[in-house]
C-alpha cells in the first residue's frame, strides 16, 4: 500500500501540476465551475453528462486518483475466469477529449465557505457546484482481528484492481481440498448480491480446478439478496461445496487472525487457506471531510441528490443515504443523470425535468446461468422510494438464464459507454 502510493505520487506529480493549471485559468473566464470527485459509475457519468449537455457552458473538472478505472461490477467474473482484468479497465482519455479537465490526484479537503477543493498535490479547485462520488471506505474494527494493514493476507477485493488480482492468485494457490472463507458484510454495503456472486464464481473455479475444496461463508445477516436463486444454484452446480453460516448460526460472531490464517465463527476456530474479508462500509472519506455525512453515509435530498447539509454539494452512489436504492454501479449511474440535469439547470438555466431513478443488478451463478433483480424509484418527501420491482425466478429454463447472462454483457457495454463515452 505504502509503496503503491509513493510510486503513484511520484509518477503523477507532473500531471497534477499541469492538470491544475487549466481549471485555475478557466475559473476566470466567467463560466461556472463544477468539480466532480471520484471517477466511477456516479462521478464519470455526472461529469460526462454535464459537459456533453451544456455544450461548453460549464467548466467540468473530474478529480480521480487512478489513471485506469477497473469496474467493480463484473470483477467477480474475473475471479471465475469469465473475464480478463484488462477487459474491466477503462481510461479517462475519452472524458478528457470530451472537454472535461481530468485531474489525477486525491481530493483531501473541502472548504465549504470558500467553495474550494484542496488536492494532495497541493492545488486547490474552486467550485460553484461540487459533486462527490467517492464510493466506499471500510469501517474500522468491523471484523475483529482485521484491519487494512491485513489486506494482503486477507484481501477485501471490494475495490476492483490489484486486490481482485491478489484474491484470484490466492485462490489459484489453494492446496487440494483447501478451504476458502468469506466474511460477508453487514447491511448496508456496496452491491448487495456481490458477495454471493463471488461465492458462485469461486465455486465455479474450484469445481474445475480443485473440486474437493470447500467454501465457508460467515455472514452477520439472516438473509441476503437473491438468496433463493443463489442457494438453488449452489445446490445445482456445486453440491456440498458451499457452507453458508448466517446470523441464526452465529455467522455474525466472527473473528479472524491474518497471521495464523484462522477464522473463528461462533467460538469454533477453522484453519483456512484463503480468507476474503469484506468489512462493514461507509462513505468514501472525502464525504466525511466535507462534513456532509451523518453516521456512515451522506444524506441527500431525493429530488436531485443534493446534500442535506449543503445545497451546493451533491453526493452520488454508494456514499449517499437516499432511501431504497441499493448501492450499485447502476444506481450511481442513474442518480448521476438526475444530478447532472439539476446541476446544469441551476448553473445555466436549462430545463430541469422530474427525477426518475432505476436499478438492475445481474449476477452470474455458473456459466450461462445469469439472474437479475431490479426496481424503479421515484422521490417522495423523505426518501427515494421503490415503485415497482422484479426478480428472476427459481427454476427458470437454461435458455432464459443464458439470455439473462448475455443481457448482462450488453448492459456492461452500455453502462461503460454511458460513463466514458
Amino acid at each position, binding site marked *: 500500500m505504502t509503496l503503491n502510493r509513493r510510486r503513484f505520487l511520484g509518477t503523477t506529480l507532473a500531471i497534477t501540476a499541469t492538470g491544475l493549471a487549466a481549471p485555475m485559468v478557466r475559473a476566470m473566464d466567467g463560466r461556472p465551475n463544477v468539480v466532480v470527485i471520484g471517477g466511477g459509475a456516479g462521478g464519470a457519468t455526472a461529469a460526462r453528462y454535464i459537459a456533453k449537455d451544456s455544450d461548453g457552458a460549464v467548466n467540468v473538472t473530474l478529480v480521480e486518483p487512478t489513471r485506469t478505472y477497473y469496474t467493480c461490477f463484473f470483477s467477480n467474473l474475473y475471479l471465475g475466469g469469465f473475464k480478463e482484468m484488462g477487459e474491466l479497465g477503462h481510461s479517462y482519455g475519452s472524458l478528457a477529449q470530451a472537454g472535461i479537465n481530468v485531474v489525477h490526484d486525491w481530493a483531501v479537503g473541502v472548504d465549504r465557505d470558500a467553495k474550494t477543493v484542496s488536492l494532495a498535490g497541493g492545488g486547490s479547485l474552486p467550485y460553484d457546484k461540487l459533486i462527490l462520488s467517492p464510493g466506499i471506505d471500510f469501517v474500522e474494527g468491523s471484523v475483529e482481528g482485521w484491519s487494512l494493514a491485513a489486506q494482503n493476507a486477507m484481501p477485501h477485493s471490494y475495490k476492483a484492481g490489484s486486490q481482485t488480482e491478489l484474491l484470484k492468485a490466492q485462490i489459484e494457490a489453494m492446496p487440494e481440498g483447501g478451504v476458502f472463507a468469506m466474511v460477508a458484510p453487514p447491511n448496508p454495503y456496496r452491491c448487495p448480491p456481490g458477495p454471493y456472486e463471488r461465492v458462485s464464481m469461486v465455486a465455479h473455479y474450484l469445481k474445475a480446478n480443485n473440486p474437493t475444496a470447500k467454501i465457508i461463508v460467515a455472514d452477520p445477516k439472516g438473509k441476503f439478496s437473491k438468496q433463493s436463486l443463489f442457494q438453488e444454484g449452489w445446490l445445482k452446480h456445486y453440491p456440498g461445496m458451499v457452507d453458508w453460516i448466517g446470523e441464526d448460526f452465529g455467522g455474525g460472531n466472527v473473528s479472524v487472525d491474518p497471521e495464523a490464517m484462522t477464522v473463528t465463527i461462533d467460538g469454533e476456530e477453522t484453519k483456512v487457506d484463503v480468507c476474503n474479508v469484506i468489512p462493514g462500509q461507509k462513505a468514501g472519506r472525502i464525504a466525511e471531510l466535507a462534513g456532509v455525512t451523518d453516521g456512515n453515509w451522506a444524506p441527500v435530498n431525493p429530488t436531485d441528490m443534493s446534500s442535506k447539509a449543503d445545497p451546493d454539494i451533491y453526493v452520488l452512489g454508494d456514499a449517499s443515504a437516499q432511501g431504497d436504492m441499493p448501492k450499485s454501479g*447502476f444506481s450511481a449511474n442513474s442518480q448521476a*443523470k438526475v444530478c447532472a440535469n439539476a446541476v446544469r439547470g441551476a448553473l445555466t438555466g436549462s430545463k430541469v425535468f422530474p427525477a426518475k431513478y*432505476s436499478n438492475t443488478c445481474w449476477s452470474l451463478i455458473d456459466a450461462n446461468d445469469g439472474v437479475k433483480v431490479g426496481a424503479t424509484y421515484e422521490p417522495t418527501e423523505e426518501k427515494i422510494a421503490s415503485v415497482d420491482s422484479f426478480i428472476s425466478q427459481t427454476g427458470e429454463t437454461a435458455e432464459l438464464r443464458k439470455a439473462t447472462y448475455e443481457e448482462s454483457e450488453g448492459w456492461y457495454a452500455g453502462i461503460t459507454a*454511458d460513463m466514458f463515452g
Partner: protein
Amino acid sequence: MRLRNLALVVPALLMGAGIAFSAELGDADAGKQVFQKCKGCHEVGKGAENRIGPHLNGLFGRRAGSLEGYRYSKSFERLGASGYEWHADTLDAFLENPRALASGTRMSFRGMEDAEDRQNLVAYLRGFSDNPANIPEADPTATASDHDVDPEILAIVGDPEYGAYLSSECTTCHQADGGDHGIPSIVFWPKQDFVVAMHAYKNKQRNHPVMQMVAGRLGDEEIAALAAYFANPE
C-alpha cells in the same frame, strides 16, 4: 450498428426499394403463394433442412451467412462479417435484387420486382422465426397490428428535449451509438414502431421484465418524447 452497415452497403437499393418497414408488412397467406418461387432451393417450417440454399427457419435477426452446417459462398460470408443481418428491410432490399447485394452466390434468383410480393413473402417468412412478436426488439419491425395502440396515443407529438433527458435511463443498457451487443439497438426507430413497442411492454404484451418495469411507469407523453428523440438522436 446494423443500421449503419445497412447504410453503407445498400444505400442505392433502399432508395429504389422503398423500405418495407413493418408498418407495411404484407399478407402472410399471400406470401405463402409467393414462396412457391423459392421452394426449389429453400425449405421453411417444421423439419426444414438445408438444400441448395439454407433453410429459412429463424431467419429474422440472423446474421447473413451464419447458419451452422451450411456452406456459404465467400460473398455471403463477407456480407455476414460486415454485420449484415436479416430483417424486414434488409430482406426486402435483397429480394428485389439479390446480386446487387451478394454476387457470385448459388442464389440464382434474379429478383422480385413487385414490392407487394416482397412484402407478402417477408410477412410469410417472419412466421417461421421464434416468437416473432419479440423479434422487433432488435429492429423496427413492430407493427400496429401486433398490439393495438389507441390512434390518439400514436398521434401524440413528443418533445425531443424531454426525450433526450428520459433517454438517459435507456442508455445505461442500450448503447447510444446503436451498438447491439447483448442488448438491442433502439436508435433510429420509426416513431410509431417505438411507441407501439413501448406500449406493448407497458401493457405486458411483451414479456421482458426490465422493459415491462421501465415502460410501466412511463406516461403516453413520455413514450412519445422518447420516440421523438430516438427517431433521430443526433
